[in-house]
C-alpha cells in the first residue's frame, strides 16, 4: 500500500461493493468466450458496482489495474474471472492486501479450466457456464467476511523417506544448513539402486566411487539421524508440525555391539538368493546387503534363519551381538517438513511372455546385466550366460520393455534411462570383448541429456555396436539355449533372423509396488503414471499438493542420477525455505460453533478425524461442541453432519454455499 492509498475497512455490515475483473488469458479464454459480453453481464448483477476486462489480469499491469480500481471505486469485494484458483488465488489475494483490502474478500470464477478449455467446441455453452460461474462467485462474495491469516510455527526438522541417491543428497543439504534430519530407509542399508550400478553414463565414472563416500558422509553427519531397516507407519499433523511414527524392524543383531567382522557368515549354514544381486548370487541368512553397506552391521533374515544357534556361539560372534529375541521398536518424532524419495521398482517382464523372461535362462533384465558387469558383482565384472556360465559372444538388447507401450502390458511413459544404460552396458562389454557382436533393438533412441548424444554416437562409431531399428515380436530358444530373434529392420525394411547367446531386456522404471501406502500415510497424490504427483508440473515440480511435503528423485517420475540429485536439492531448498522462516501462513478456514444452536449431540466429535472437537459444559448454553483451532484443519466433516447447522466453516460457510446454490438463474 502506498501513502496515497487508504485502507478499506470492512466489517461485513456495509453494503457490498463488488468489482468483477474478467481476464482474456490471451486467447485461452477470449478465443472461446466473448469477454465484452461477460463484462456487460457482470454489470447487471446485484451489488456489482464495477466490471472490466484485461488481457492478462495476473500480469503487473493487470494487478495494478485491480489495485487502482479497488481504491477508486471503493470496492469491498473483488472477483477475478480467469483461471483456476489453484493457480492464481494467492497472487490476487496479495493484490487485495496491497490495495488495503482484507485478502479474504476475494473470490475467483474459474472460466478457463472449467469452461473455455473444456467447452472449446461449444462456445455458447462455454459462455453460459462462464456467466454462471461469475454469478455464483458474486453470490458468494456478498457473504464474504474479512478473516485474519493464521501463522503456525515450522519445526526446524525434516523427515526424509528413502535413502537412495535422491534422499541422501536432500539429507546432506539440509543437515549442512543446520536442520535436523530423520532419514528413514526401508532396507538395512542406504544407497538405493545406485549401489547396484557398475558405471554411470555418460561419463562412465564408477558408481560406487561417487556413491559410497556420500553414504559415509550421511552416516557420519551429526544432524542426520539415520534410521535404516525402518518404516514410517503413521503421520499426523500438518505443515510445520508433523507427528511421525517410525517402526524400527528387529535386526536380531545388536547394532551397537556388532563390529561387522563377518565371521558369522562363514558359519551360517543357510544360503538364499541375494536381493542385491537379483538372485544371481546367494547370501547367508545373516548378512549385510553388500560389502560397502552403510551402516555396516549385520542383520538376520528371520524368514530364512533356522535358528541353529551357531552364529550366537561366542566362538563365532565374539562381541555377543546376536539377539534372537530382538523386538521391533517404535519411535515418534516431530518434524516440520517431509521429503519423499522412495525411488522405483524395475518393471517385471515376466508378463510379456513373448520375450521368454523366466522361461529361457539366457534372457535377463538390464538390472541383472548391471550386476553381471559390476566389478564387485557376483562375477567380478565378467558376465557369463546363466545357462552354461560361458562368456557370451553375441548379445542382443531390446529397448522399451514395459515402457512406451500403449497396447499390451507395461507402462505408457518413457523411462528415460534405458536407451542410455543399454548403450553403457554394450560399451562396457565391447571394451573387454572387442570381437563380441552386440545388437540394440530400438524404436528410437532418446539421448537428450548433457553429453548423451555424444555418448550414443560414439557407441556406434568407436565401438561398433549395431543399432537396429525394429521391435522384436517374439523370441524362441534354439540349440544350446541360444535365443533366436525374429524382427524387421524398419530402416532397411528387411526381415532379420538372428541367433544370440544372451538377450537383455532393457526394462523401464516403475512406481514402487507399495506406493499406495505412502499416498495414504501422507495424503499426497499420484499422477496417471502412478508416480507421486507434483503440485504443478512446471512451477512447483518438487511440491506435493499437501503443504510441507515434497518429492524428489524417481519417486516423482523416471529420471537419471543427475536429475534425481537436482530435484533432491530443489526439494531440500524448498523445505529449508519454510524452516528458515520458522513460521508459515495458513488459511484461516476453521470450524466455528454457534453455541445458541448447538444441542450437544456429539455427531461432530465422532466425525472429526483430528480429535479437534469435544463436548463441553457451558454455563449459558449447556452441553455444546467446542473446537480446538490448533487441531482443526477446516475439512468440514463436522459441519457436513450438523443437523442444527450449528457448525460453520470459515471460507466455506453454509451461507456462502447456499448463496451459490440459489444462484441458479
Amino acid at each position, binding site marked *: 500500500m502506498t501513502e496515497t492509498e487508504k485502507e478499506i475497512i470492512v466489517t461485513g455490515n456495509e453494503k457490498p461493493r463488488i468489482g468483477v475483473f474478467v481476464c482474456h488469458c490471451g486467447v485461452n479464454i477470449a478465443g472461446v468466450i466473448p469477454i465484452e459480453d461477460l463484462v456487460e453481464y457482470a454489470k447487471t448483477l446485484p451489488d456489482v458496482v464495477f466490471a472490466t476486462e484485461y488481457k492478462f489480469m495476473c500480469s503487473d499491469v493487470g494487478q495494478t489495474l485491480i489495485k487502482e480500481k479497488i481504491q477508486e471505486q471503493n470496492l469491498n469485494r473483488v472477483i477475478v474471472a480467469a483461471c483456476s484458483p489453484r493457480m492464481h488465488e494467492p497472487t490476487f489475494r496479495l493484490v487485495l492486501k496491497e490495495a488495503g483490502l482484507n485478502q479474504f474478500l476475494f473470490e475467483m470464477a474459474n472460466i478457463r479450466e472449467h469452461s473455455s478449455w473444456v467447452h472449446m467446441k461449444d462456445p455458447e455453452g462455454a459462455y453460459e457456464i462462464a456467466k454462471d460461474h461469475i454469478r455464483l462467485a458474486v453470490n458468494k462474495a456478498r457473504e464474504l467476511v474479512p478473516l485474519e491469516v493464521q501463522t503456525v510455527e515450522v519445526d526446524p526438522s525434516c523427515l526424509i523417506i528413502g535413502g537412495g541417491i535422491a534422499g541422501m543428497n536432500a539429507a546432506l543439504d539440509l543437515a549442512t544448513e543446520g536442520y535436523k534430519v530423520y532419514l528413514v530407509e526401508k532396507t538395512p542399508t542406504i544407497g538405493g539402486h545406485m549401489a547396484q550400478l557398475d558405471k554411470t553414463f555418460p561419463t562412465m565414472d564408477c558408481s560406487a566411487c561417487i556413491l559410497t563416500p556420500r553414504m559415509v558422509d550421511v552416516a557420519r553427519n551429526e544432524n542426520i539421524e539415520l534410521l535404516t531397516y525402518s518404516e514410517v507407519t503413521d503421520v499426523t499433523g500438518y505443515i510445520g508440525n508433523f507427528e511421525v511414527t517410525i517402526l524400527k524392524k528387529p535386526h536380531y543383531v545388536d547394532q551397537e555391539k556388532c563390529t561387522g567382522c563377518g565371521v558369522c557368515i562363514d558359519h551360517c549354514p543357510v544360503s538364499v538368493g541375494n536381493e542385491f544381486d537379483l538372485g544371481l548370487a546367494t547370501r547367508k541368512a545373516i548378512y549385510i546387503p553388500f560389502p560397502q553397506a552403510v551402516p555396516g552391521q549385520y542383520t538376520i533374515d528371520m524368514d530364512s534363519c533356522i535358528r541353529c544357534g551357531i552364529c550366537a556361539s561366542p566362538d563365532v560372534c565374539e562381541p555377543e551381538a546376536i539377539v534372537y529375541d530382538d523386538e521391533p521398536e517404535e519411535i515418534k518424532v516431530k518434524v516440520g517438513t517431509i521429503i519423499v524419495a522412495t525411488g522405483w521398482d524395475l518393471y517385471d517382464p515376466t508378463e510379456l511372455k513373448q520375450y521368454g523372461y523366466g522361461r529361457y535362462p539366457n534372457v535377463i533384465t538390464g538390472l541383472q546385466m548391471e550386476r553381471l558387469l559390476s566389478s564387485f558383482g557376483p562375477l567380478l565384472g565378467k558376465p557369463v550366460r546363466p545357462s552354461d556360465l560361458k562368456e557370451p559372444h553375441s548379445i542382443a538388447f531390446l529397448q522399451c520393455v514395459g515402457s512406451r507401450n500403449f497396447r499390451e502390458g507395461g507402462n505408457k511413459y518413457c523411462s528415460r534411462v534405458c536407451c542410455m544404460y543399454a548403450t553403457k552396458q554394450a560399451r562396457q562389454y565391447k571394451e573387454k570383448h572387442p570381437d563380441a557382436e552386440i545388437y540394440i533393438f530400438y524404436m528410437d533412441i532418446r539421448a537428450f541429456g548433457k553429453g548423451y548424444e555424444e555418448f550414443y554416437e560414439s557407441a556406434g562409431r568407436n565401438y561398433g555396436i549395431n543399432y537396429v531399428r525394429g521391435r522384436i515380436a517374439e523370441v524362441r530358444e534354439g540349440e544350446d539355449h541360444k535365443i533366436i530373434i525374429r524382427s524387421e529392420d524398419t530402416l532397411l525394411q528387411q526381415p532379420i533372423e538372428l541367433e544370440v547367446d544372451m538377450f537383455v531386456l532393457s526394462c523401464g522404471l516403475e512406481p514402487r509396488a507399495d506406493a499406495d501406502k505412502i499416498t495414504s500415510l501422507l495424503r499426497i497424490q499420484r499422477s496417471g503414471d502412478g508416480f507421486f504427483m507434483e503440485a504443478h508440473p512446471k512451477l512447483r515440480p518438487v511440491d506435493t499438493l499437501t503443504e510441507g511435503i515434497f518429492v524428489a528423485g524417481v519417486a516423482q517420475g523416471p529420471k537419471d542420477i543427475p536429475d534425481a540429485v537436482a530435484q533432491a536439492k530443489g526439494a531440500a531448498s524448498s523445505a529449508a525455505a519454510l524452516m528458515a522462516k520458522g513460521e508459515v501462513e495458513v488459511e484461516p478456514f476453521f470450524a466455528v460453533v454457534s453455541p445458541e444452536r448447538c444441542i450437544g449431540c456429539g455427531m461432530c466429535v465422532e466425525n472429526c478425524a483430528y480429535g479437534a472437537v469435544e463436548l463441553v459444559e457451558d454455563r449459558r448454553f449447556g452441553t455444546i461442541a467446542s473446537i480446538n483451532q490448533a487441531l482443526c484443519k477446516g*475439512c*468440514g*466433516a463436522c459441519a457436513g453432519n450438523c443437523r442444527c447447522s450449528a457448525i460453520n466453516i470459515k471460507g466455506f460457510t453454509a451461507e456462502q*454455499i447456499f448463496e451459490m*446454490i440459489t444462484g441458479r438463474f
Partner: protein
Amino acid sequence: MSKVVFETEDEEEVKVDKDWKPRILAFLCNWCSYAGADLAGVSRIQYPATVRVVRVPCTGRINPFFILKALTDGWDGVVVSGCHPGDCHYISGNLVARRRFALLNELLEFFGIEPGRVNFMWASAAEGERFAVLIEKATERVKKLGPNKRFLKKW
C-alpha cells in the same frame, strides 16, 4: 428400496430433448476432484457444458441440506465428487461423506426424487479424463430424466 413409491406417482412422460442442456451443480472437493477438473481443462478434454462448480474443502463438508436445497431450487442435477476412498486429504472426510450420502440416497428416493438426479462419484487430481467421462455420464442420466420439476408448483 421399494419401487412402489414411484409407480404410484403420476409420472409425466418426458421426451428427451437432444439439445436441452441440463443445469447441474457440482460440489467438488478442493484436493482431488477440483484439481481433476482443472487437469481436464489443462489437457483440453472436452465434456458437455452442463456443470457449474462449487468448490468445497472436502466432500465431508457437504451437508445434505445443500443437495436438497439445490434440488428444491431447481437445479436439474447435482454432482458430488471427492477423493477416492482411502485417499482423503483429511484422512477420512470422504468416508464420512460416503456414509452420509448412502443414507441421503434413500431419503431422496423416499422424497420421490428420481435416482440419477444426484450423482456421487470419485475422481482424483490425476484423473482429468475420468472426471470428464463421469460428467458426461451424469449429464446423460439427468438428460434422460428431463428438467427437474418435482418441486415446481403447477398453476
